[in-house]
């Protein structure tokens, strides 16, 4: 595999980067970079770490970095996953308030520790923002641990961007992907349909039953998408050859925020001809300028979730008996 890091790859402009990933020769990974500047979303770093672990450190090469931002890549811990990589002399000062280096998370306990330690480092101005971020990271990592069927676990990192007052979070795995995970209970025609289905409230690969199983409700991704939607944040899910990107709500919708159980009703873009990602990648931006508190979002989730279940039940039972002479 070959990956070239461009000078900019964030959720808003990430499509060309994803399309450029060369997935031939899956046993090796070679990463090159833009010669003068590299600025990428944490999701990209999580993807690279996940790929490097998948091919094995000895088969993962990070070519020489001439861009000044090579220091940043090292500080985020990316080079730790590569057998061959550049080295920069940097002062490893306290990362508080700026970034959370890449962590490989293989157990629930590691997940709880990662989240507990990351929150104080982000210096969030409001408790509800901490609640939202804890919720997002926990649900995403738990999805990997429970459903991805990979021993490599989840790769997660985050960074605060002062220019946009936004925390960007990326989580990647190289497991079975959303479509195969859902296929235990839901048949889908392609990866894009599977991603969209996974965003409906109450859809889980563990059962077709409304309300889920004792351990799984199928609400995690819907709650996360809802947080992003209400706050006008970007959210992206990439699995197989498909990507779903939640775009920001328009200003016209400012006065009445209505959550959609059906992701097709959200302002979004999709692509279904990307290089196949064996696993799942999720990226999300959380604007700290948002005014909608987490509790208010949860209240919206509550009403939308209940309505979605009622509608699905009505749909299921709407067929009438057919009488013939």
């Amino acid at each position: 595999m070959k990956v070239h890091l461009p000078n900019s790859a964030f959720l808003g402009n990430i499509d060309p980067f994803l399309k450029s990933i060369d997935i031939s020769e899956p046993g090796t990974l070679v990463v090159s970079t833009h010669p003068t500047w590299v600025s990428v979303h944490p999701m990209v770093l999580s993807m690279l770490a996940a790929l490097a672990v998948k091919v094995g450190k000895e088969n993962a090469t990070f070519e020489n970095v001439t861009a000044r931002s090579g220091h940043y890549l090292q500080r985020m811990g990316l080079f730790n996953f590569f057998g061959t990589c550049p080295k920069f002399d940097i002062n490893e000062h306290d990362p508080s308030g700026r970034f959370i280096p890449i962590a490989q998370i293989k157990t629930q306990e590691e997940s709880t520790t990662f989240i507990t330690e990351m929150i104080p480092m982000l210096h969030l101005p409001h408790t509800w923002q901490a609640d939202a971020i804890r919720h997002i990271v926990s649900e995403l990592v738990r999805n990997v641990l429970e459903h991805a069927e990979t021993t490599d676990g989840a790769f997660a990192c985050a960074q605060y961007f002062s220019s946009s007052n936004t925390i960007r979070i990326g989580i990647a795995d190289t497991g079975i992907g959303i479509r195969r995970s859902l296929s235990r209970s839901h048949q889908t025609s392609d990866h894009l349909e599977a991603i969209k289905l996974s965003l409906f409230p109450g859809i889980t690969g563990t059962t077709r039953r409304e309300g889920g199983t004792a351990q799984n409700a199928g609400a995690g991704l819907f709650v996360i998408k809802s947080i992003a939607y209400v706050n006008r944040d970007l959210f992206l899910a990439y699995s197989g050859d498909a990507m779903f990107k939640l775009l920001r709500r328009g200003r016209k919708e400012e006065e009445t925020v209505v959550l959609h159980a059906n992701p097709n009703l959200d302002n979004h873009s999709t692509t279904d001809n990307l290089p196949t990602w064996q696993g799942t990648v999720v990226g999300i931006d959380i604007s700290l300028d948002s005014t909608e508190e987490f509790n208010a979002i949860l209240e919206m989730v509550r009403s939308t979730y209940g309505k979605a279940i009622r509608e699905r039940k009505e749909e299921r039972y709407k067929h009438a008996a057919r009488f013939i002479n």
Partner: protein
Amino acid sequence: MKEIKLFDVFGVFADNKDIAQKIRTEQIIPALKDEGTVTLDFAGVETATQSLIHALVSDVFRIYGGDVLERISFKNCSESIQKVIEIVVDYMQES
């Protein structure tokens, strides 16, 4: 009357579904047998994920139905925990 102090097992952030499952099967469900009552005390817990609350109580609704809410109490909940509990209680009764 069984009271379960959740901070002792989860700390300030409750997200470990494995522990939730253990509490549900070993403490909550047995305590609700024979018309027993249970109080889940969230004192000290700042927030809990929806998955955690689901793992903690959803099966209780399947076993005992919505009437079980007369015998299970949620104590000292932060506002976000209260909201998450309401989400789970609602969709379990809808489904």
